[in-house]
Protein backbone atom coordinates (compact mmCIF):
# COMPACT_ATOMS: atom_id res chain seq x y z
CA UNK A 1 0.00 0.00 0.00
CA UNK A 2 1.31 3.43 -0.94
CA UNK A 3 1.38 6.55 1.26
CA UNK A 4 -1.35 8.36 -0.69
CA UNK A 5 -3.74 5.42 -0.22
CA UNK A 6 -3.22 5.69 3.53
CA UNK A 7 -4.17 9.35 3.57
CA UNK A 8 -6.54 10.06 6.43
CA UNK A 9 -5.48 6.95 8.33
CA UNK A 10 -1.79 7.69 8.92
CA UNK A 11 -2.40 9.19 12.36
CA UNK A 12 -4.30 6.13 13.58
CA UNK A 13 -1.65 3.80 12.17
CA UNK A 14 1.13 5.72 13.93
CA UNK A 15 -0.79 5.80 17.22
CA UNK A 16 -1.30 2.03 16.95
CA UNK A 17 2.44 1.54 16.36
CA UNK A 18 3.11 3.36 19.64
CA UNK A 19 0.53 1.39 21.60
CA UNK A 20 3.09 -1.19 22.68
CA UNK A 21 5.30 1.41 24.38
CA UNK A 22 7.74 4.23 23.58
CA UNK A 23 9.41 4.06 20.17
CA UNK A 24 11.71 6.27 18.12
CA UNK A 25 10.88 7.17 14.52
CA UNK A 26 12.64 4.27 12.86
CA UNK A 27 11.27 1.77 15.41
CA UNK A 28 7.77 3.01 14.51
CA UNK A 29 8.53 2.25 10.86
CA UNK A 30 9.85 -1.21 11.75
CA UNK A 31 6.76 -1.90 13.85
CA UNK A 32 4.55 -0.94 10.90
CA UNK A 33 6.60 -3.16 8.59
CA UNK A 34 6.17 -6.11 10.92
CA UNK A 35 2.49 -5.59 11.65
CA UNK A 36 1.65 -5.29 7.94
CA UNK A 37 4.12 -7.95 6.77
CA UNK A 38 5.95 -5.28 4.76
CA UNK A 39 2.87 -4.29 2.71
CA UNK A 40 2.83 -0.70 3.97
CA UNK A 41 5.24 1.23 1.74
CA UNK A 42 5.74 4.65 3.35
CA UNK A 43 8.63 6.98 2.55
CA UNK A 44 10.45 6.97 5.89
CA UNK A 45 10.93 10.74 5.83
CA UNK A 46 7.17 11.36 5.90
CA UNK A 47 6.78 9.60 9.26
CA UNK A 48 8.79 12.20 11.18
CA UNK A 49 6.66 15.28 10.36
CA UNK A 50 3.55 13.20 11.14
CA UNK A 51 4.98 12.31 14.57
CA UNK A 52 5.64 16.01 15.26
CA UNK A 53 2.07 16.84 14.25
CA UNK A 54 0.69 14.22 16.64
CA UNK A 55 2.93 15.62 19.36
CA UNK A 56 1.61 19.15 18.76
CA UNK A 57 -1.91 17.76 18.98
CA UNK A 58 -1.08 16.33 22.42
CA UNK A 59 -1.67 12.73 21.33
CA UNK A 60 1.95 11.68 21.87
CA UNK A 61 4.90 13.11 23.79
CA UNK A 62 8.51 13.11 22.66
CA UNK A 63 11.64 12.91 24.78
CA UNK A 64 15.34 12.88 23.92
CA UNK A 65 17.89 10.27 24.95
CA UNK A 66 21.43 9.47 23.81
CA UNK A 67 22.03 6.08 22.19
CA UNK A 68 25.42 5.11 20.78
CA UNK A 69 26.56 8.74 20.90
CA UNK A 70 23.57 9.90 18.85
CA UNK A 71 20.63 11.90 20.14
CA UNK A 72 17.41 9.97 19.72
CA UNK A 73 13.84 11.16 20.07
CA UNK A 74 11.35 8.66 21.43
CA UNK A 75 7.59 9.04 21.39
CA UNK A 76 4.88 7.59 23.55
CA UNK A 77 1.11 7.81 23.68
CA UNK A 78 -0.52 10.30 26.02
CA UNK A 79 -3.87 9.61 27.71
CA UNK A 80 -5.50 11.69 24.95
CA UNK A 81 -3.63 9.58 22.38
CA UNK A 82 -4.94 6.33 23.90
CA UNK A 83 -8.49 7.71 23.76
CA UNK A 84 -8.00 8.95 20.18
CA UNK A 85 -6.67 5.54 19.09
CA UNK A 86 -9.62 3.78 20.67
CA UNK A 87 -12.02 6.14 18.88
CA UNK A 88 -10.25 5.77 15.53
CA UNK A 89 -10.33 1.97 15.88
CA UNK A 90 -14.07 1.96 16.53
CA UNK A 91 -14.64 4.34 13.58
CA UNK A 92 -12.51 2.16 11.30
CA UNK A 93 -14.38 -1.03 12.29
CA UNK A 94 -17.72 0.63 11.52
CA UNK A 95 -16.44 2.09 8.23
CA UNK A 96 -14.80 -1.18 7.23
CA UNK A 97 -17.93 -3.23 8.03
CA UNK A 98 -20.13 -0.87 5.99
CA UNK A 99 -17.84 -0.82 2.94
CA UNK A 100 -17.24 -4.58 3.10
CA UNK A 101 -20.99 -5.20 3.26
CA UNK A 102 -21.55 -2.89 0.29
CA UNK A 103 -18.74 -4.36 -1.81
CA UNK A 104 -19.46 -8.01 -1.10
CA UNK A 105 -23.23 -7.97 -1.26
CA UNK A 106 -23.85 -10.42 -4.12
CA UNK A 107 -27.60 -9.68 -4.05
CA UNK A 108 -26.84 -6.26 -5.53
CA UNK A 109 -25.24 -7.89 -8.56
CA UNK A 110 -28.20 -10.12 -9.41
CA UNK A 111 -30.63 -8.62 -11.93
CA UNK A 112 -33.93 -7.50 -10.52
CA UNK A 113 -36.53 -10.22 -11.33
CA UNK A 114 -39.26 -7.57 -11.74
Amino acid sequence: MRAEELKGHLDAVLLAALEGGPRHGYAVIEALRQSTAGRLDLPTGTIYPALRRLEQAGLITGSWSVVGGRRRREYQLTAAGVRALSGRRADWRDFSAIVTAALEDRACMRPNPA
Partner: protein
Amino acid sequence: MHASESRLISSYLEVLAAQLPASIVEELADGLAETHRFYLRQGLAPERAAESAVAEFGEPEAIVAGFTRVNPARRAASRLLGIGPAVGACWAAALITGRAWGVPLPARILLGLALITCIGLLAAAALGRGYRLAARTGVAGCIGMTALDLVLITGVTFAVTSVTWVTVAAMAASIAVTARALRPALAR
Protein backbone atom coordinates in the same frame (compact mmCIF):
# COMPACT_ATOMS: atom_id res chain seq x y z
CA MET B 1 30.28 4.08 9.34
CA HIS B 2 32.13 3.58 6.08
CA ALA B 3 33.65 6.72 4.50
CA SER B 4 31.81 6.47 1.15
CA GLU B 5 28.32 5.92 2.64
CA SER B 6 29.09 8.56 5.22
CA ARG B 7 29.63 11.08 2.38
CA LEU B 8 26.29 10.23 0.76
CA ILE B 9 24.34 10.36 4.02
CA SER B 10 26.24 13.44 5.20
CA SER B 11 25.48 15.37 2.02
CA TYR B 12 21.80 14.33 2.31
CA LEU B 13 21.71 15.60 5.89
CA GLU B 14 23.49 18.81 4.87
CA VAL B 15 20.67 19.56 2.43
CA LEU B 16 18.17 19.09 5.25
CA ALA B 17 20.27 21.05 7.76
CA ALA B 18 20.26 24.06 5.43
CA GLN B 19 16.48 24.24 5.71
CA LEU B 20 15.44 22.66 9.01
CA PRO B 21 16.25 23.29 12.71
CA ALA B 22 19.07 21.29 14.29
CA SER B 23 16.78 19.25 16.56
CA ILE B 24 14.78 17.96 13.58
CA VAL B 25 17.95 17.15 11.63
CA GLU B 26 19.33 15.24 14.64
CA GLU B 27 16.21 13.12 14.75
CA LEU B 28 16.37 12.48 11.01
CA ALA B 29 20.09 11.64 11.26
CA ASP B 30 19.31 8.99 13.87
CA GLY B 31 16.54 7.55 11.69
CA LEU B 32 18.77 7.57 8.62
CA ALA B 33 21.56 5.78 10.52
CA GLU B 34 19.07 3.13 11.67
CA THR B 35 17.75 2.74 8.11
CA HIS B 36 21.33 2.32 6.88
CA ARG B 37 21.98 -0.34 9.52
CA PHE B 38 18.80 -2.13 8.45
CA TYR B 39 20.10 -2.43 4.89
CA LEU B 40 23.52 -3.53 6.11
CA ARG B 41 21.80 -6.31 8.07
CA GLN B 42 20.03 -7.29 4.83
CA GLY B 43 23.51 -7.98 3.41
CA LEU B 44 23.95 -4.92 1.18
CA ALA B 45 27.40 -3.42 0.68
CA PRO B 46 27.91 -0.20 2.71
CA GLU B 47 27.64 2.12 -0.29
CA ARG B 48 24.55 0.37 -1.64
CA ALA B 49 23.02 0.34 1.87
CA ALA B 50 23.55 4.11 2.11
CA GLU B 51 21.90 4.62 -1.29
CA SER B 52 18.94 2.47 -0.25
CA ALA B 53 18.60 4.31 3.08
CA VAL B 54 18.58 7.70 1.36
CA ALA B 55 16.10 6.44 -1.26
CA GLU B 56 13.81 5.06 1.45
CA PHE B 57 13.82 8.39 3.28
CA GLY B 58 12.57 10.15 0.16
CA GLU B 59 13.33 13.47 -1.47
CA PRO B 60 14.68 16.13 0.94
CA GLU B 61 12.19 18.61 -0.52
CA ALA B 62 9.30 16.34 0.48
CA ILE B 63 10.65 16.04 4.02
CA VAL B 64 11.13 19.80 4.33
CA ALA B 65 7.62 20.36 2.94
CA GLY B 66 6.24 17.89 5.49
CA PHE B 67 7.89 19.67 8.41
CA THR B 68 6.90 23.08 7.01
CA ARG B 69 3.24 21.99 6.98
CA VAL B 70 3.41 21.09 10.69
CA ASN B 71 5.46 24.15 11.68
CA PRO B 72 3.64 25.57 14.74
CA ALA B 73 4.17 29.18 13.58
CA ARG B 74 2.69 28.38 10.17
CA ARG B 75 -0.35 26.72 11.73
CA ALA B 76 -0.81 29.63 14.14
CA ALA B 77 -0.62 32.05 11.20
CA SER B 78 -3.21 30.05 9.26
CA ARG B 79 -5.53 30.06 12.27
CA LEU B 80 -5.12 33.82 12.71
CA LEU B 81 -5.80 34.46 9.03
CA GLY B 82 -8.88 32.24 9.20
CA ILE B 83 -10.46 33.84 12.25
CA GLY B 84 -9.01 37.34 11.71
CA PRO B 85 -11.91 38.68 9.61
CA ALA B 86 -14.37 37.82 12.42
CA VAL B 87 -12.21 39.64 14.99
CA GLY B 88 -11.84 42.55 12.57
CA ALA B 89 -15.62 42.71 12.22
CA CYS B 90 -15.92 42.82 16.03
CA TRP B 91 -13.47 45.73 16.12
CA ALA B 92 -15.27 47.56 13.32
CA ALA B 93 -18.56 47.19 15.22
CA ALA B 94 -16.89 48.35 18.44
CA LEU B 95 -15.34 51.42 16.79
CA ILE B 96 -18.60 52.38 15.05
CA THR B 97 -20.84 51.87 18.09
CA GLY B 98 -18.25 53.51 20.36
CA ARG B 99 -18.06 56.52 17.99
CA ALA B 100 -14.29 56.51 18.03
CA TRP B 101 -14.05 59.18 15.33
CA GLY B 102 -11.53 61.27 17.23
CA VAL B 103 -8.50 59.18 16.28
CA PRO B 104 -6.15 61.44 14.26
CA LEU B 105 -5.63 60.59 10.59
CA PRO B 106 -1.86 59.81 10.90
CA ALA B 107 -2.62 57.31 13.67
CA ARG B 108 -5.30 55.68 11.50
CA ILE B 109 -2.87 55.42 8.57
CA LEU B 110 -0.18 53.99 10.84
CA LEU B 111 -2.58 51.40 12.25
CA GLY B 112 -3.73 50.48 8.75
CA LEU B 113 -0.16 50.02 7.53
CA ALA B 114 0.72 47.95 10.61
CA LEU B 115 -2.33 45.75 10.01
CA ILE B 116 -1.45 45.23 6.34
CA THR B 117 2.15 44.34 7.30
CA CYS B 118 0.97 41.80 9.89
CA ILE B 119 -1.46 40.22 7.41
CA GLY B 120 1.36 40.04 4.84
CA LEU B 121 3.66 38.31 7.34
CA LEU B 122 0.94 35.84 8.33
CA ALA B 123 0.15 35.12 4.68
CA ALA B 124 3.86 34.52 3.95
CA ALA B 125 3.97 32.09 6.88
CA ALA B 126 0.81 30.28 5.88
CA LEU B 127 1.64 29.98 2.18
CA GLY B 128 5.46 30.03 2.05
CA ARG B 129 7.41 26.88 1.22
CA GLY B 130 10.46 27.20 3.46
CA TYR B 131 10.41 26.01 7.06
CA ARG B 132 12.54 28.88 8.33
CA LEU B 133 10.60 31.50 6.36
CA ALA B 134 7.34 30.13 7.77
CA ALA B 135 8.76 30.13 11.31
CA ARG B 136 10.16 33.67 11.14
CA THR B 137 7.27 35.34 9.37
CA GLY B 138 4.73 33.41 11.45
CA VAL B 139 6.28 34.47 14.75
CA ALA B 140 6.70 38.07 13.52
CA GLY B 141 3.10 38.18 12.29
CA CYS B 142 1.70 36.76 15.54
CA ILE B 143 3.77 39.17 17.67
CA GLY B 144 2.73 42.05 15.40
CA MET B 145 -0.95 41.15 15.74
CA THR B 146 -0.58 40.94 19.53
CA ALA B 147 1.06 44.39 19.61
CA LEU B 148 -1.66 45.76 17.36
CA ASP B 149 -4.30 44.30 19.68
CA LEU B 150 -2.69 45.95 22.69
CA VAL B 151 -2.53 49.31 20.89
CA LEU B 152 -6.18 49.02 19.81
CA ILE B 153 -7.37 47.99 23.28
CA THR B 154 -5.43 50.80 24.95
CA GLY B 155 -6.50 53.35 22.33
CA VAL B 156 -10.17 52.38 22.36
CA THR B 157 -10.28 52.42 26.16
CA PHE B 158 -9.30 56.10 26.08
CA ALA B 159 -10.91 57.18 22.79
CA VAL B 160 -14.45 55.82 22.98
CA THR B 161 -17.03 57.91 24.77
CA SER B 162 -18.77 54.91 26.29
CA VAL B 163 -17.58 51.30 26.56
CA THR B 164 -20.37 49.12 25.21
CA TRP B 165 -20.74 45.34 25.32
CA VAL B 166 -19.62 45.33 21.65
CA THR B 167 -16.32 46.94 22.65
CA VAL B 168 -15.85 44.45 25.47
CA ALA B 169 -16.67 41.56 23.09
CA ALA B 170 -14.13 42.85 20.54
CA MET B 171 -11.42 43.15 23.21
CA ALA B 172 -12.15 39.66 24.58
CA ALA B 173 -12.22 38.08 21.10
CA SER B 174 -9.02 39.85 20.16
CA ILE B 175 -7.10 38.80 23.27
CA ALA B 176 -8.40 35.21 23.12
CA VAL B 177 -7.53 34.74 19.45
CA THR B 178 -4.04 36.27 19.52
CA ALA B 179 -3.08 34.60 22.81
CA ARG B 180 -4.19 31.25 21.42
CA ALA B 181 -2.12 31.82 18.28
CA LEU B 182 0.95 33.31 19.96
CA ARG B 183 1.62 30.41 22.36
CA PRO B 184 2.10 27.67 19.72
CA ALA B 185 3.86 30.12 17.40
CA LEU B 186 6.56 30.71 20.01
CA ALA B 187 6.81 26.98 20.88
CA ARG B 188 9.93 25.19 19.73
